[in-house]
């Protein structure tokens, strides 16, 4: 451990701590900076995190300094303040100051630092500024504005060090230096939107989010990415019931500070035209909308113990939902006619960074709950001679032609979010909430339970899944007394054999990797 004095305050930190981090701890806020990023190598080029260290004649940048025992550091002395202001001025002299049309406005490092350290009159006439290229499309997701760039090199280091794809570089030198794409290449990797996040200014903007919404109007809700078994922690930025972007939330146990582009664009599904907003029932002219009471009665009529040929869930459903569905399936169809999903669905290649081979967010929960997956051919075979109702909870099994063909004689009840092949073939469709429209638990491939919160309301008459399932169970005489989610989560804890039944109601922000009883071993990704 090293004990040092920062702004007169004694602070003890582990040996090897970066002075930058020690200063953050002592000050309660970061030193001004653009280039430093805890997950990238040190560039030391923005020169803003200057501090005064006793015994050293020159100011020193904190990001490239390791703490020493007995160090005496000033971060707010007049000399430091003056240097920071001057360096900030250098950052701004060639900046276009086009904040009114810049997407970064409101979350911009330059604006923040200027309010803290700047507040001077500009000395550089507009005509004297160095002009550079604007609106350069450098990849499928990202647009570059050279004039706004402060050349902190974070994006370059990201592509060198995190993705290893090395698309970006700095070309030319002096005040002609610019970020650019290597000849013949584009910024086209599955993590390119992270460069937009780490860009401290508005030089890199997201083509998806560009000009969609001023950032200060957005509200943030913590969610979990539904895109794969990694379960990246995301923040949904939304306003007026609409999600405008997903950005990563740091969780060092899961995704660090990053998330992949696929996952970040997954919100588009939520606002897709095919979303189900009302209950549908098959009438003379095909699927017709139904009020909830009507639909509920029809649902109860279709789902009777012994009358259900098969109950099929999907690993995109949450942990609570799967627990309730398993209970329901056992009651309605029995263990042999119950599956957690279609085997092999959603399997692709891992990219070795965050994107897992398993593109389902909750397959681990199926393993825990011993809900087996069933191969399409086997399911088709099972359904071929069957009579009664086929209950489908999420997913789209009818996308497999053989299943759709084999289920021709069955009455399909579909509980889901989108008007897909299964819904189109259904007798009754109950609209449900999508992942960001409900508070739910997800078990990632490593067996970590994480909670995503409700960012926006479900459309129209779509209901939270657990309420529909609990209602059904109640109707079937399974008196669970589930007045709210907390009770559902106690039930889940009980189902998993967790000693503390309330542990899921007190989940830490970063999630929980519980020790499960031996019967449900955690498998690899």
């Amino acid at each position: 451990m090293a004990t040092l004095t920062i702004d007169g305050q004694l602070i003890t930190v582990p040996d090897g701590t970066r002075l930058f981090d020690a200063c953050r701890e002592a000050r309660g806020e970061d030193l001004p900076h653009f280039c430093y990023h805890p997950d990238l190598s040190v560039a030391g080029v923005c020169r803003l995190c200057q501090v005064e260290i006793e015994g050293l004649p020159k100011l020193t940048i904190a990001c490239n300094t390791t703490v020493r025992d007995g160090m005496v550091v000033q971060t707010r002395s007049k000399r430091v303040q003056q240097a920071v202001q001057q360096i900030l001025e250098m950052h701004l002299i060639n900046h276009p100051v086009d904040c009114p049309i810049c997407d970064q406005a409101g979350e911009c490092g330059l604006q923040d630092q200027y309010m803290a350290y700047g507040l001077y009159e500009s000395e550089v006439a507009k005509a004297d500024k160095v002009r550079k290229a604007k609106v350069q499309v450098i990849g499928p997701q990202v647009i570059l504005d050279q004039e706004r760039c402060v050349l902190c090199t974070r994006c370059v280091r990201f592509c060198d060090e995190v993705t290893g794809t090395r698309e970006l570089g700095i070309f030319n030198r002096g005040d002609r230096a610019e970020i650019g794409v290597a000849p013949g290449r584009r910024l086209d990797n599955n993590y390119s939107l992270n460069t937009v996040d780490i860009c401290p200014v508005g030089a890199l903007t997201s083509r998806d989010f560009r000009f969609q919404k001023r950032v200060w109007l957005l509200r943030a809700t913590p969610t979990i990415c539904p895109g794969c078994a990694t379960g990246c922690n995301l923040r949904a930025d939304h306003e007026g019931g609409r999600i405008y972007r997903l950005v990563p939330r740091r969780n060092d146990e899961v995704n660090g500070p990053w998330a992949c582009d696929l996952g970040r664009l997954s919100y588009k599904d939520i606002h897709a035209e095919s979303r189900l907003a009302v209950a549908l029932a098959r009438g003379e002219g095909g699927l017709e909308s139904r009020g909830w009471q009507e639909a509920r009665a029809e649902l109860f009529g279709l789902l009777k113990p012994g009358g259900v040929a098969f109950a099929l869930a999907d690993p995109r459903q949450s942990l609570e939902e799967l627990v309730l569905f398993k209970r329901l399936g056992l009651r309605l169809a029995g263990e042999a006619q119950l599956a957690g999903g279609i085997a092999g669905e959603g399997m692709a290649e891992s990219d070795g960074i965050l994107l897992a081979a398993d593109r389902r967010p909750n397959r681990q929960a199926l393993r825990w709950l011993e809900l087996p997956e069933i191969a399409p051919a086997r399911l088709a075979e099972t359904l071929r001679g069957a009579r009664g109702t086929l209950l489908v909870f999420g997913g789209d099994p009818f996308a497999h032609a053989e299943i759709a063909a084999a289920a021709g004689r069955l009455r399909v009840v579909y509980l889901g979010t989108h008007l897909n092949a299964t819904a189109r073939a259904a007798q009754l469709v109950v609209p449900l909430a999508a992942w960001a429209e409900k508070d739910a638990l997800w078990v990632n491939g490593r067996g970590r339970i994480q909670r995503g919160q409700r960012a926006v309301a479900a459309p129209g008459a779509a209901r939270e899944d657990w309420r529909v399932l609990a209602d059904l169970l109640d109707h079937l005489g399974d008196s669970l007394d589930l007045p709210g989610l907390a009770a559902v989560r106690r039930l889940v804890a009980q189902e998993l054999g967790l000693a503390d039944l309330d542990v899921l109601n007190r989940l830490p922000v970063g999630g929980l990797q519980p020790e499960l009883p031996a019967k449900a071993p955690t498998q690899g990704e």
Partner: protein
Amino acid sequence: MSRQDCRILSARFGRPDGHRLAVYQAAGGYQALRLVLAGMKPDEVIEVVKESGLRGRGGAGFPTGAKWSFVPKTADQVYFFVNADESEPGTFKDRYLLDYDPHQTIEGTIISAFAVRANLAFIYVRGEFGWLVDRVQRAVDEAYAAGFLGRNILGSGYDLEMIVHKGAGAYICGEETGLINSVTGTKGQPSIKPPFPAVSGFLGKPTIVNNVETVAAVPWIMLNGAAAYRGFGTEKSPGTKLWSVSGPVRRQGVYEVPLGLPFREFFRDDLGGMRDGEELKACIVGGSSVPVLTAEEILSCTLDYESLQQAGTMLGSGGMIIIPQSADMVELLKVLMHFYWDESCGQCTPCREGTGWLHRVTSKLLKGEAVAEDLALLERICDGMAGLTICPLADAAVMPVRSFLKRFRGEFAARIHETAAAGSPTRWARGE
């Protein structure tokens, strides 16, 4: 002692075919290497160089022996670089050393590399010195053929490979970490320190970078001893120094004189004073990056590290630019600012933006478009650059500005455009 006796580094300058191995050997060349490899240990070489008081001749004047001793003794691989990327405006001594007597530098490099236990040495030659690259390469080839390079040199068991590397023409690659990056194949720009190259340099291994003139002095020191070297110069500035002199003096060129020589004497006896009709106004004594001195100031200096420092400047690279009364200091500063603006690598914001800003403001001054506040602005820009960057290029740009303004303010004030202050469209931000 006659001036001729002081010629250590330049002893063979001008000799016919002086760049040939045979000529160098006939004049006692490679005797120092034989002596060192016959019985000295690397640390003993370092000790001798330490005792000699030899200081880095590239500009910073850091004690050479001390720099060598920073290499961790446990290092499994060490690299040695000779910095021949001579691009400081006003400096052309290394070019002479490599042109007239390349073997002296090669011999010095072998001994220096031996001292730091390096088995691979690079001579990084400035890109613009095209012909020189060929000359040095031919000399290296000769040294290989004669067994002074390669495996088991002179039967000593010491191996050294030497690569002549041609730069691509960037001032910043003369900065040691920029030079290492350039050879590595990455962008030629300085690295952040720490770590220092002596600990982690080329390919992450300890690396020593020395100026041509520094290593060229090593053979003489090994042959004649540290005490003999200290026989030249002053106590704190031992030895001799090459000065490359430009400007309207009677005899421009490269001179080797003992450190501590009074400038007045050097100016009168060696340079022959100013040309007819010219008068000494100022002198940039150590390359364009050191503060300018007035005629009065420089005439009272002796040419050594301490005296020049006391006068407010630095010995630097020994690139002496003599400035006559007829010179326009505003124009001269603008030309220098163009250089630093052009050569800034652009990674550190204060340097990238500051050099451009200085260039724009000095350009305005020259064109008569500057207003009174622009002089203060120049100084304020300097405050935002000095000492705040990774490498000294920003300081190198700042020192001329500050010293020109301090010593020749009148010339700058005379260029202020009086009416501009009243309502120039370029002063929009001030609300004037």
